[in-house]
C-alpha cells in the first residue's frame, strides 16, 4: 500500500452508501434504468411464476398478504413512535441543560452500539418481565426505541442546519424557545429532514423482518409458516424476497420524488 505523503492529499473521497436501495435520480441514468429493471423484473417474475406454476407460487401469494399488512403496521407504528422519540432526542442533543443533553447523548450512543436484533430480544424480554405486553406492541416499541436514536440525529442535524439568526430573530420578538422552535425552526428544518426520514422508513420496513422472531406474523413469518407446512422453502423465500424488493423499490422511488419536489421549492 502506498504511504500517504505530506499534506498534498486533498479531499478524501466520500463514499456514500445509504441503507435503503440506491435512490434513483433523473440525472443518474444508469441507476434509473437499474431501478426500472429491478422493479419491473420483480413484478414480471412474480407474475410469471404465479401463472406458470400456481402450486405453490400462487398459493404463497394468497397466503402472505396478511403478513404484508402486519409488516406495514409494525413499520408505520414504529416510525411514528420513533419520530416522537427522535424529536425529543434531537432537542435534547442540542439542549444547553447538561443533564438533558447527557441523557439524550447516552441514549444515542448506547442504541447505536447494539445490534438491532439484540435490542429487540432485550426489550422484548425486559418488557416481558415487568409487564406482559402483546408481542406486537413489544416489537413496535423495540423498533421505535432503536430508530428513535437515528431519528434524533436526523432532527438534530436538521435543526442545526437552520441559520442561528432565525432563532435570534424569533427570540428577540419575545418568543419563548419552544415557541421559536415550533413556529420558526422546526417548520424550516422539516424540509431538510423529510428525505432522510423517508429513507429511515424504508430501512425500518426492511429491519421489521426481524420481528418475525418475536411471534409477530409479519411478511417473513407468514412465509416461514407456509414453507414449514408445505416444505417449499426455496419457492416461498423467493416470493418473500421479491415482495420485499418491490415494496422497498416502490417506497424509495416515492422518497426520491419527494426529495426532488422539495429541492424545486
Amino acid at each position, binding site marked *: 500500500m502506498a504511504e500517504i505523503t505530506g499534506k498534498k492529499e486533498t479531499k478524501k473521497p466520500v463514499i456514500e452508501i445509504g441503507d435503503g436501495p440506491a435512490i434513483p435520480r433523473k440525472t443518474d441514468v444508469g441507476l434509473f434504468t437499474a431501478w426500472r429493471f429491478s422493479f419491473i423484473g420483480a413484478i414480471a417474475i412474480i407474475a410469471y411464476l404465479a401463472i406458470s406454476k400456481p402450486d405453490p407460487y400462487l398459493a404463497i401469494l394468497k397466503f402472505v398478504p396478511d403478513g404484508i399488512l402486519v409488516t406495514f403496521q409494525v413499520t408505520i407504528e414504529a416510525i411514528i413512535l420513533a419520530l416522537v422519540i427522535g424529536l425529543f432526542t434531537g432537542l435534547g442533543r442540542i439542549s444547553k441543560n447538561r443533564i438533558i443533553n447527557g441523557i439524550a447523548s447516552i441514549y444515542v450512543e448506547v442504541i447505536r452500539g447494539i445490534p438491532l436484533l439484540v435490542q429487540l430480544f432485550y426489550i422484548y424480554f425486559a418488557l416481558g418481565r415487568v409487564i406482559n405486553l402483546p408481542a406486537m406492541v413489544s416489537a413496535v416499541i423495540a423498533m421505535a426505541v432503536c430508530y428513535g436514536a437515528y431519528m434524533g440525529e436526523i432532527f438534530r442535524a436538521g435543526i442545526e442546519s437552520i441559520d442561528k*439568526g432565525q432563532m*435570534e*430573530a424569533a*427570540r*428577540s*420578538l*419575545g418568543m*419563548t424557545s419552544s415557541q421559536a422552535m415550533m*413556529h420558526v425552526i422546526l417548520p*424550516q428544518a422539516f424540509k431538510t429532514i423529510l428525505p432522510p426520514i423517508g429513507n429511515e422508513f424504508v430501512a425500518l420496513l426492511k429491519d421489521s423482518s426481524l420481528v418475525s422472531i418475536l411471534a409477530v406474523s409479519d411478511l417473513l413469518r407468514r412465509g416461514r409458516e407456509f414453507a414449514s407446512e408445505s416444505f417449499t422453502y426455496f419457492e416461498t423465500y423467493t416470493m418473500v424476497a421479491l415482495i420485499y424488493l418491490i415494496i422497498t423499490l416502490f417506497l424509495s422511488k416515492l422518497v426520491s420524488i419527494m426529495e426532488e419536489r422539495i429541492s424545486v421549492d
Partner: protein
Amino acid sequence: MSTDNKNTMVKLRNVYKYFGQLKALDNVSLDIYDGEKIVIIGPSGSGKSTLLRSINKLETIDAGQIIVDGFDICDQETNINKVREEIGMVFQSFNVFPHKTVLENISLAQTVVRKRSKKEASQISTELLKKVDILEKSNEYPGKLSGGQQQRVAIARALAMKPKLMLFDEPTSALDPEMIGEVLEVMITLAKEGMTMIVVTHEMGFAREVADRIIFMDFGAIVEEGTPEHFFKNPTRERTKIFLNQIL
C-alpha cells in the same frame, strides 16, 4: 430630541463581557433616555454588536448591570421574554422567516407573543407594510424580495410588537448600495416619530442627521461620546480621529 426630561430607557453600569479570554465589553456604562437616538460607531471587533445584543440579552454579560425599561435584565426573576417584547431588533442579515409570507412574517409574533387575533394582527401588519412601502409584496415569500425589501420587512416585523426601543445592528451593511437609501429612509421616519433608537452603523450621513449622541467604541470600551457636531468638528481622542479619518 432633547435629553433634558430624563426618563431612562436603558441604563448600563460597569458592564463586562468575555468570550473566553477576549474582553468584548470592558467596563461599559451608559444611559439612554426616552426618545433618544444613539449611533454607535467603531472598528470591527470593537464590541458594538455585543453591546447591542446584551441589551436584549442575546448575549449574557459577565459583570455589571443592565436595566431596560425599568427591568433588571440580569435578574433571574425578570421574564426576559416580556422585556424583549418591548425591544425591537433589526439584524445585518435581515433574518426574515423564509417559510412565511411577508404578511405572516409580520403577524407571527403578534399572534404568538402579543396574543392578538389573526384579524387584528393582519390589520396592523398591513398598516406597517404601507409604512415601509412594501404592501404590494404582502403575499410573497421573502426569497423573492431584494435585500432592501427584506430589511424593510424585518423592520416592520419588529415594529409590529409596538416596541419602546429599537436596536439596529448594521442594518444596511449587507445591502447593495442602491438599496441603502430606502432602508435609511424608513429609519429616519421612525426617528422623527420619536422612537428610542440605538443604531450601529457606518452611515455617517445618517448619524449626522439623526443622532442625538454618537458613541465611539474601541476594544470593548466607550472611548468617546458626544453630539454629531462634536464628532465631526473636533473629536478629542486620538483613536477617534484616526477612525473617523479612515471612514470619512
